[in-house]
């Protein structure tokens, strides 16, 4: 099976405190730790496991810039056969539909049986996979938590629905699936593995390579535009205990007891 995984490099929210910049139009990016979007990493692991069972190749593609090569190398160190950087000045400022349009052109250049994305990225949009599938006229499933390859160009998949229940379906290939975290246990990638792929060439594709007109993507085509960032003010906010640890512990115990939690 030929599998394409669409991945993205994002600020790692588990490693960073997100601060706004002075102008309020972006987050402070200088000190951020970046990594592959976590669900995308699960998607690559899933692709590798499918290929280990059925044969085939795994290609990891990202729409971005030079800095994003690092996640492609990381996923190649995991075992992906190829990394592809889809990059062009004309792509910058694309909205979800723009990114999906770019990826559609890339998918149509190849012969992929299966296209995987992570369920969502740092913007929590959960957009691109479903839009890409519709542009390609492929079947789509989101929040996928298991994949079994069946005979006759079909998969049996599970989706995560409410209350920990799973919805089981059959889906025709080629299709697009968005992968939920926890579907597998992604393998560890050491520095040594990354060094081994450090000089593997990464092909790049631009708008003209993919036959994408400038008016279909990029900022001019974007109908959805983020205009600023601000600090959320939801709810009343917690009363922050600012005592010593010992004082805070005493206070917690007092509160737990008062709320009927100490027997």
């Amino acid at each position, binding site marked *: 099976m030929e599998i394409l995984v669409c991945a993205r490099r994002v600020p790692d*929210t*588990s490693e960073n*405190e*997100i*601060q706004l910049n002075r102008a309020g139009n972006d*987050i402070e990016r200088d000190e951020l730790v970046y990594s592959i979007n976590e669900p995308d990493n699960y998607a690559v692991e899933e692709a590798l496991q499918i290929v280990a069972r059925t044969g085939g190749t795994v290609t990891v593609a990202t729409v971005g810039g030079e800095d994003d090569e690092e996640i492609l190398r990381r996923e190649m160190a995991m075992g992906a056969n190829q990394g592809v950087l889809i990059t062009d000045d004309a792509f910058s400022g694309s909205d979800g*539909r723009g990114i999906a349009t770019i990826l559609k052109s890339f998918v149509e250049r190849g012969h992929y049986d299966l296209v995987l994305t992570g*369920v969502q990225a*740092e913007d*929590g*949009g*959960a*957009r*691109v996979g*479903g*839009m890409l*599938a*519709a542009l390609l006229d*492929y*079947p*789509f499933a*989101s929040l996928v938590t298991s994949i079994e390859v069946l005979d006759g160009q079909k998969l049996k998949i*599970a*989706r*995560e*629905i*409410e*209350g*920990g*229940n*799973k*919805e*089981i*379906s*059959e889906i*025709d290939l080629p*299709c697009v699936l968005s992968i939920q*975290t*926890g579907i597998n246990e992604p393998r560890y990638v050491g520095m040594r593995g990354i060094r081994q792929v450090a000089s593997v060439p990464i092909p790049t594709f631009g708008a003209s390579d993919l036959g994408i007109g400038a008016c279909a993507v990029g900022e001019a085509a974007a*109908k*959805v535009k983020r*205009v*600023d*960032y*601000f600090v959320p003010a*939801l*709810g009343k*906010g*917690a*009363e*922050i205990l600012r005592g010593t*640890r010992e004082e*805070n512990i*005493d*206070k*917690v115990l007092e509160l*737990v007891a008062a*709320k*009927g*939690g100490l027997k």
Partner: protein
Amino acid sequence: MARIFAYIVHKGGVVDDSAFELAAAARKIDPDSSPTALLTGCGPELDAACNSLSASYAEIWKISNEALAYPNAELVRKALLKVLPSNSIVLIAHEHFGIDLAPGLSIKMNATFVSDVLDIAGVDGANLKVIRQEFGGQASTHVHCDVSTGAVVTIRPGAFKPAEVTPGSSTVIDKSNEVGSLSAGRRYLETVVAEAGDVDITKYNVLVSIGRGIQEKDNVAIAQQLADALGAAVSCSRPVVDAKWMEKSRQVGSSGKTVKPKVYLACGISGSFQHLAGIKGSPFLIAINKNPKAPIFQVADVGIVDDILEFLPELTIKVRELHSIAK
């Protein structure tokens, strides 16, 4: 402003709570609008769901079709495309079905798509201004959407207060004949119900709930010791289950269990909306997290900025001391 529709999720003849939240969101987009409810399904359950909406929607469009008995996003999309007027604005709850349906629907409608909307900041001509969050709730953004060719907007469950119910009459319009036969590249087989697990976290008054901040599997014991001392159970957020440190049955959230404890100790939990959706009954929420920017502090009653791996063991010692004094 274009006509606003709300796609209503229902099950067993009962509409999801989001039905009333979508009505509120629609009125915030256009106070003069009378949003139209859209329901798909079949049989008496569909009719019961339609009838239960009369107080919130003046007009209800139903599409009855045996193929839609189980909500398959691809089939629902095809059905909606047959009936929706061009340039419509369609609101959908941002939960597992909406995530499946909305992005592809927007493409096929040639409409703008914006997802997981928390609030409406205003409307300026065909410019719909919404508020979203990014980075797991650590930053909010204003997003401007050109809705001149229609829009699909998914609304975060719980973000809008349900519209006030004003008993009134509504019209149910049967659109079934406009749809015809439906088929899809994805076919529903069955639903597998979640396993019960060793501990039923829904039965406890106090939960010591752990998140990514627990850092490794061996540290789960730190939370278990505190829970034992308190007569509580250990629950967790999604990353702990993803990492296989705890069973799925311990997960609190929209894709896990819904709990109603008296006291909820959120330890090293960032506080994603999917996690918070599993905490009901307004427990007293104490959050302990190293990151002062963690969204959990916005919803907690009391917050402590500290390392749980140091804080929890000391708290456990104190609880044990109290018990020995009491004896």
